[in-house]
């Protein structure tokens, strides 16, 4: 559905993405993880069509992304950035309704179909009790649900999320992960999301892309990609990757820079490794 084929991207002279290959198919959840500055958010923005990329590098339904105009892209791909503008003087309903914009010329009139989809998105995200409230009055968790409702109203097969659970408390974090899983399970949406917490990525992903300095370090299922070695190589930190009883997914437990020799089986001959461990 959405593919990057040898994608490069630079801000000015600084190259951010190098030869990135990515494939997302229908009903998959794909996570992008990696250290700060590894290019995850930039990759997401390139895929969403917001950044100017070279021709014939990104394909949407097997057609080059640059052959679509912004409205057509918006009918296929929804994108939710990490930081939202502080809004006021707009109701929850107003905001969700903006998701219908790609289907309109003027935005003055909403059709019956628009209203049905808006109402459905509001019900689905369980925000109908405050749909006439000012967005400003909501808590962080409620607001995030409103934003998700808005991109659901956009009615796209592909949804891109930039750190959707950052700055939420534990309960809201796991609620949001549950919502993302349901987008896949109930509506076969394709979700590509940036995560900071590797455990979140493991929890919900079909495939993980681990980025390092703008290149894909490794890709595959969570079990294939998230290993003690890969975490050490990319994040330069030591961690246990363990399975806890009754829990089917692995959990990453970072242990910092302590006693790597006792815990890991990677090569002590690695020079980087010696430098890093002496940092403690």
């Amino acid at each position, binding site marked *: 559905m959405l593919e990057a084929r040898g994608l490069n991207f630079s801000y000015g002279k600084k190259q951010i993405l190098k030869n990135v290959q990515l494939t997302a198919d229908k009903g998959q959840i794909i996570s992008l993880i990696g250290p700060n500055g590894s290019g995850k958010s930039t990759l997401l923005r390139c895929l969403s069509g*917001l950044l100017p990329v070279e021709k014939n590098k990104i394909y949407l339904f097997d057609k080059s992304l640059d052959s679509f105009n912004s409205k057509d892209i*918006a009918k296929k*791909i929804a994108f939710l*950035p990490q930081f939202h503008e502080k809004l006021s003087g707009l*109701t929850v309903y107003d905001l969700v309704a903006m998701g219908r914009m790609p289907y309109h010329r003027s935005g*003055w009139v909403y059709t019956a179909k628009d209203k049905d989809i808006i109402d459905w998105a509001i019900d689905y995200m369980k925000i109908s009790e405050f749909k006439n409230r000012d967005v400003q009055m909501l808590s962080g968790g409620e607001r995030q649900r409103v934003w998700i409702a808005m991109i659901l109203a956009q009615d796209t097969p592909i949804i891109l999320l930039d750190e959707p659970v950052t700055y939420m408390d534990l309960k809201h974090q796991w609620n949001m992960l549950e919502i993302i899983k349901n987008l896949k399970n109930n509506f076969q949406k394709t979700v590509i999301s940036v995560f900071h917490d590797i455990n979140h990525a493991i929890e919900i992903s079909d495939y993980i892309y681990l980025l390092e300095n703008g290149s894909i370090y490794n890709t595959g299922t969570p079990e294939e990609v998230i290993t003690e070695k890969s975490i050490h190589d990319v994040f330069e930190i030591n961690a246990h990757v363990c399975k806890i009883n009754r829990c089917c997914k692995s959990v990453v437990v970072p242990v910092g820079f302590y006693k790597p020799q006792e815990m890991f089986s990677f090569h002590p001959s690695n020079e980087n490794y010696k430098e890093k461990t002496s940092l403690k």
Partner: protein
Amino acid sequence: MKEINLKNRKKYKLSIISAALIILIIVIIFSLSTGTIEIKISEIIEIFRGGLKNTFVWHIVTNVRLPRILTGVLVGINLAISGVLLQGILRNPIASPNIIGVNAGAGLAAVAIMTLFPGKMNFIPFAAFGGALLATLLIYILATRSSSASSTVHIVLAGVAVSSILGALTSALMMLNSDVLEISYSWLQGSLSGRSWTSFKMIWPYTLLGLFISIIISPKINLFSLGDEMAGSIGLPTKFYRTLIILTSSILAGSAVSVAGTIGFVGLIAPHAARLFIGNDHRYLVPLSALFGAILLVLSDTLARTLFQPIELSVGIITSILGGPFFLFLLYKKGKIQINK
């Protein structure tokens, strides 16, 4: 049940807009009747029905006060819409026509004519209009050259810098030519004194065009409140609309300044006052701001010409004296000014 709620909200907004329209009409009639010569409301109504032709009172109403008041209405509308457009797309509460250099550009051009070509005073409105557009263009080019991602911030910063340079040049011209200090100062304060149907004819096409464009695209301005990135991702060609909106607001404010001089504050406070009543939905905010701008300007101009008659104050002085406290009152009464940032 909730659906009814939404409809009520719409009804409430439309009723506020209608109320503002009625207030504007009352203010216009009040302004027509007050002045050095008091004119009875009954006489004004008679004149509108086609009576009292060619009497002294008829002459004052149709040839002196009406053109001045209607010019004031249009100037108020232009400045207010220009402000609401800029606040909307720049997501900056202190954005007003000043920020895109309209006042500074028009001021420099007008003062340059007064000092360097004193024989060509008739040319001032055109020069001011041109100066306003050029200043906006310069700021826009400077801002968008530097970056595309955060160009809204760059527009504000470039606006401040360019405006202060142009303002300094204006001051220098005035000091070096102190013989025109009085007229240039009074022009810079803004005035509707002696404006005739000629001024009205100069400005109405721009008002109509600006109003038309702003109302048509008002749902798109709402999208800018989501942030440029989010607006882009729901299919808005942000660059195109940002350019269109800045151009429109420059034309609106530039044409206003060209007939009335640089009247401050209206473009800043009319939108904020309107926002406190009906929120941030530009479909309603644009028309209500326009009406508020017109009311503020006509009321201020009436006071400017009657308070200390026969001396007339500049209308810009009154908009600030009247608008400032009113603004503060709203600010404290309603809690806080609502803006997207």
